[in-house]
């Protein structure tokens, strides 16, 4: 059970700050959510709407010989169907981000000619109820010719079975990243530690709410309105509109409340396009609500990655000189958001460490598994797990203290901002300080006593550290390091803030909140600038592309709201504040510099009695503007601001540049006890220290840390999407795929430090994706505990009890040291 300290430990910054930012004000969203008044897409119904059910492939890989929907169509209450053949005629394939061979893959809304993973949608049935649609789907007869399945990245590389004939290879993307002088590092080293293999398992941060959408088609305007839970509609529209042969503005995305997303709701464009086609074909609104089993089987998993032939040149005192690794990334049957994962990891190339010579041979392949999508900690999590695994395995192999190895190699606080070997800039942080706090919280100094105590009870005790970075605010220019022809760079986010006729302050966001408290934190920032309270600020709930408050890269993803979203809010509010001052100055015959905002009024600094309430300012501009002087009649009190981070284009040749703006720090420490008879283990103590710069709302930050930790503990202990050799998913539901619940959570101790970012408008950093630290903390704790039981190499990211039992039975080491 989680036992959070009532007041998290905060150091290095005064608790009291002027204004509302930095305080845990009551969340604006909570009242409607706890009263059951939230509006999720499935709450929205339309007269005469139909319910969509997808007919899904039972095979991992098969040719589709025929699809017969006639029996389903004849069932009373069935409105119609859609097949892959229709989709192939009515749409174009979704564009691919990769260069060839990945660029040649053809991906449609429904399977065309072949299925490539269990659960792939083959046809869709629409009926008057969700249950009837599901029953009717059983009447669709699909004749399959099974083909051999590819179920691992290494198998895919053989190309014995090729998934996409158009590509001619299972490789989506491959490239060599080589920074510094790796051979020089080997020459300088006293030892080269070699690790044969490590594997980051496939899992997903399952959201509470499954995916879905209600689609309405307007025949008169040719426009679709999509009430859904897509978390990145700007990019979704970029995928969907060309496929549907229409314009971006013909797709209106609307959402209010979303029950979690974690990246899984970025790649919904295939299902959404199918629903668009159905609503147009049947001339009625249609709603698709994903079943939980379908969510597990065929929505989006996290990237699975195998690391081979790892080499670490190191000095005898534990100084890390270099890292070389071959990475094989398994992205499932279709690339979709990929191959962006082939570069996203490079945002954190050296992890928290001062490695200068790094070589990564990276290959991404397709397999007959569910396609992946950015999953909380996307791509960096896999790489950071690798770097942390390397630290502990090197320390273990050379009989060094993993704490000391970390401290010796961490980027130091006095080196910030720090440029990594590939040109990324770590903005601020103090990793060693975070580690000290985390160790202190679990009583690290008494570890040996605890170990002996556990031993007396027949248990093996281990302690493990995970120290990771949550890089936030992408520079989309990094995509050009994968495909030089892509026309993406920088980033943007939009907000509008207006002062309405009765003095209401109304904020509209371009982001797509899924529980992160955007309404609350935006109101804090606005309140501080306009000198009002958060209660005086109305932040429109949710997202609507008709609000004109979004840009091409809008959305909620990649740890960036505190920078991009609030940066846009800050910019728009400052514009509004200036306009209010101009109006007041016009009325008083003064200059804007003579005006200050206080207590909901604009007043003369020199004579506070001369004040106009915001209600008056709003009324003058919106309804009584003839009294305004000519030179302020351009004022609208409706201010739109686009925040654009200070990025430049990366160097494509050197694969070098600043790929992301901020770096939040997480240091987690886990203490576990293993029962050596069974492999069952328990996390008996846990500490999480977070540094995400200036915290706008500490309680929301802490909530994110808790959530990310729960995802991490699930991923480290039980959550794995396991497939058999035929490509059947063996863990397609919550019975086999165990997500931790409250009783699975260890006693958790939280602390925070604040190292403000010098690069962002508020000193804040994006955060919330720091779960990778927890995954490694558990792995490292297992490794430590197993030292006295043979010392098997913990080589997988997910280690259920049976895996630990295997380690206890077969204590094979995958680590070798070559010394000079």
């Amino acid at each position, binding site marked *: 059970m989680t036992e959070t300290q009532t007041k998290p430990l905060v150091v290095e910054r005064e608790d009291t700050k002027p204004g509302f930012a930095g305080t845990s004000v009551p969340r604006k969203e909570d009242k409607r959510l706890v009263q059951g008044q939230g509006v999720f897409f499935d709450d929205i119904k339309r007269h005469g709407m139909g319910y969509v059910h997808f007919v899904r492939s*039972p*095979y*991992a890989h098969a040719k589709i010989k025929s699809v017969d929907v006639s029996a389903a169509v004849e069932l009373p209450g069935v409105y119609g169907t859609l097949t892959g053949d229709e989709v192939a005629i009515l749409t174009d394939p979704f564009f691919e981000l990769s260069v060839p061979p990945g660029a040649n893959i053809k991906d449609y809304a429904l399977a065309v000619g072949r299925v490539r993973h*269990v659960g792939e949608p083959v046809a869709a049935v629409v009926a008057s109820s969700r249950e009837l649609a599901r029953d009717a789907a*059983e009447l669709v007869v699909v004749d*399959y010719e*099974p083909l051999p399945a590819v179920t691992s990245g290494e198998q895919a590389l053989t190309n014995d079975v090729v998934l996409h004939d158009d590509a001619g290879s299972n490789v989506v993307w491959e490239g060599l990243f080589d920074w510094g002088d790796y051979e020089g590092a080997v020459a300088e080293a006293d030892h080269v530690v070699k690790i044969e293999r490590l594997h980051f398992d496939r899992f997903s941060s399952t959201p509470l709410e499954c995916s879905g959408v209600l689609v309405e088609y307007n025949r008169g305007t040719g426009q679709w309105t999509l009430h859904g839970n897509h978390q990145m509609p700007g990019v979704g529209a970029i995928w969907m509109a060309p496929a549907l042969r229409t314009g971006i503005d013909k797709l209106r995305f609307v959402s209010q409340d979303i029950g979690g997303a974690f990246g899984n709701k970025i790649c919904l464009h295939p299902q959404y396009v199918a629903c668009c086609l159905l609503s147009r074909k049947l001339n009625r609104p249609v709603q698709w609500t994903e079943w939980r*089993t379908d969510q597990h*089987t065929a929505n989006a998993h996290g990237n699975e990655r195998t690391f081979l032939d790892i080499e670490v040149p190191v000095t005898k005192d534990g100084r890390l000189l270099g890292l070389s690794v071959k990475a094989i990334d398994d992205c499932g049957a279709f690339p979709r958001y990929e191959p962006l994962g082939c570069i996203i990891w490079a945002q954190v190339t050296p992890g928290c460490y001062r490695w200068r010579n790094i070589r990564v041979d990276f290959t991404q392949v397709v397999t007959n598994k569910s396609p992946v999508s950015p999953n909380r900690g996307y791509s960096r999590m896999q790489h950071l797990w690798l770097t942390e695994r390397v630290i502990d395995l090197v320390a273990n192999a050379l009989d060094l203290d993993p704490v000391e190895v970390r401290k010796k190699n961490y980027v130091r606080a006095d080196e910030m901002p720090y440029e990594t070997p590939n040109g990324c800039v770590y903005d601020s942080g103090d990793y060693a300080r975070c580690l000290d706090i985390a160790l202190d919280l679990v009583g690290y100094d008494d570890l040996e006593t605890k170990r002996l105590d556990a031993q007396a009870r027949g248990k093996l005790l281990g302690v493990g550290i995970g120290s990771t970075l949550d890089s936030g605010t992408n520079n989309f220019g990094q995509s050009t390091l994968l495909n030089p022809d892509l026309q993406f760079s920088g980033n943007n986010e939009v907000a509008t803030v207006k002062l309405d006729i009765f003095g209401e302050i109304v904020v509209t966001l371009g982001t797509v909140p899924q529980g992160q408290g955007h309404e609350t934190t935006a109101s804090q920032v606005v309140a501080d600038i306009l000198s009002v309270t958060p209660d005086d600020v109305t932040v429109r709930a949710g997202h609507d592309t008709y609000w004109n408050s979004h840009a091409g890269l809008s959305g909620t993803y990649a740890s960036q709201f505190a920078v991009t979203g609030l940066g846009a809010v800050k910019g728009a509010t400052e514009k509004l504040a200036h306009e209010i001052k101009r109006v007041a100055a016009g009325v008083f015959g003064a200059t804007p510099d003579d005006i200050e905002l206080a207590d909901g009024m604009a007043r003369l600094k020199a004579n506070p009695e001369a004040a106009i309430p915001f209600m008056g300012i709003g009324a003058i501009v919106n309804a009584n503007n003839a009294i305004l002087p000519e030179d302020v009649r351009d004022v609208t009190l409706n201010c739109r601001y686009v925040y654009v981070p200070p990025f430049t284009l990366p160097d494509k040749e050197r694969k070098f540049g600043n790929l992301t703006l901020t770096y939040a720090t997480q240091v987690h420490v886990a203490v576990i006890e293993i029962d050596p008879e069974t492999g069952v283990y328990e996390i008996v103590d846990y500490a999480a220290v977070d540094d995400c710069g200036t915290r706008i709302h500490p309680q929301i930050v802490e909530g994110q840390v808790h959530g990310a930790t729960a995802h991490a503990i699930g991923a480290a202990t039980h959550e794995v999407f396991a497939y*058999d050799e*035929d490509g*059947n*998913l*063996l*863990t*397609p539901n919550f019975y086999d795929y165990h997500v931790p619940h409250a009783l699975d959570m260890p006693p958790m101790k939280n602390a925070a430090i604040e190292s403000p970012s010098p690069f962002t408008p508020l000193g804040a950093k994006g955060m919330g994706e720091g779960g990778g630290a927890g995954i490694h903390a558990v792995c490292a704790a297992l490794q430590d505990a197993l030292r006295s039981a043979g010392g098997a190499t913990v080589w997988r990211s997910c280690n259920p009890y049976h895996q630990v039992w295997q380690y206890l039975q077969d204590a094979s080491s995958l680590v070798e040291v070559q010394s000079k």
Partner: protein
Amino acid sequence: MRLEGTKALDAPRDTVWFVLNSPDQMAKLMPGVESFDVHDDRHWRANVKIPLGLGGLRMTIDFTKLEEREPEFAKLAAKGNGVGAIMNMETAFHLSDAGGGTEMRWEADVKIAGPVGSMGQRVLQPIVNQQVNNVLAALERQCAEAAASS
């Protein structure tokens, strides 16, 4: 899932061949057969109910004889469809004389897809093993009866 084995049968090879290649006899070998239709001498269809959890798994199985060398070898393909499961199987048997009886060497490659397939081998393997044992026991009885009546 690949299965194989050897079975000694107390009947002459011609008798065993007859049992294994006669659709009527075949129908009696299979577990839970509710109906059996012979389309021609190479294509048969069976509607079966396989005991699996509550209510059992109903499946329609189409058999196609792929190859035969009387009286020593035959190879069959079976494709089954049911709610929640699709089965594909290729099976072959080799018959040889063994004293007065027959030795049957058999193999089968079974693929189960769909939600039932996702239950995995930890659940399916014992069920398949049980069904195979039932089939072999039935075969032994059928052969004994056929031998006695000839």
